[in-house]
């Protein structure tokens, strides 16, 4: 991991930098327009309603791929902030269930780490629109926690 990224993560934890800066480093996160909200120590990720992310113009509904990318990126940021000594999370696999149509409205996501090992992180991600109890998608993913300087 680069020193500049380590420094940014540290600054975010100390409240000296905005968590959004960590998100906005990632070009694809900006492409989707991902935002995040911190309440106490809870992180909620937001994919604001955006016509660029539409997959079905008739419904209209969000592109399933945009929702999946949003959830994967949410998990990556979540892991980065959870690790004592941060390493770069690289996606090993990502599995998603589509439960309801992603309507053309704001989408929210939360992550839960099932296990954080030295090399592997197991994460569960849930995304919803109307209410948290009615997820539109749930996903399970594994990340390799890489020591490499990239």
């Amino acid at each position, binding site marked *: 991991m680069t020193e500049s990224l380590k420094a940014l993560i540290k600054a975010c934890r100390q409240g000296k930098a905005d968590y959004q800066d960590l998100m906005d480093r990632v070009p694809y996160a900006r492409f989707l327009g991902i935002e995040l909200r911190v309440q106490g120590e809870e992180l909620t990720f937001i994919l604001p309603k955006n016509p660029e992310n539409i997959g079905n113009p008739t419904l209209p509904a969000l592109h399933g*791929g945009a929702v999946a990318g949003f959830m994967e990126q949410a998990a990556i940021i979540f892991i980065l902030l959870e690790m004592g000594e941060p390493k770069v999370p690289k996606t090993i696999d990502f599995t998603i269930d589509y439960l309801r149509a992603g309507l053309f409205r704001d989408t929210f996501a939360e992550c839960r780490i099932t296990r954080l090992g030295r090399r592997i992180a197991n994460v569960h991600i849930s995304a919803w629109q109307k209410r948290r109890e009615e997820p539109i998608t749930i996903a399970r993913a594994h990340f390799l926690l890489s020591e490499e300087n990239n």
Partner: protein
Amino acid sequence: MTDSNIPYTRMDVCNRSLETVKHSRNLGMEVLSAEEEGVRVRLPWREDLVGNPDTGVLHGGAIFAMMDQAGGMANSCRLYPNFEITPTIDFRVDHLHAPTPGKAVVCHATCYRLTDHVTFVRLTTWEEGKEEGEPVATALATYTRMKIDKNGRVVS
């Protein structure tokens, strides 16, 4: 009915779906071929699709979005000349290794089983020009079939 009597090809169907799906167009996706056995779809490397700004590697989510769309097109190719919409039920992708920054990727998607209500799709993505070598990602997915009438309404 032979294929030659149908006024549109599988390629037309796939291109039509790309035209209407704004997000896939934004990703810069391109259909390279569309046959009964499946489709080949290309995703360019682009700076705004990068997942790791320190390496320039494409985001797994961008590869996922392209593959999910390719799976839908594989369904269209299998269902041709009929047209149905096929929402994704479940999709699993394995990222076998990172594609080289600056290189486009190409996905092959095949619907290998079609039932009354469900399609089963297998997908493999390679770096462009290395389609004989190690894939960068493989995926398995299921989709549900929704038949629509000529006005685009779901009938079953």
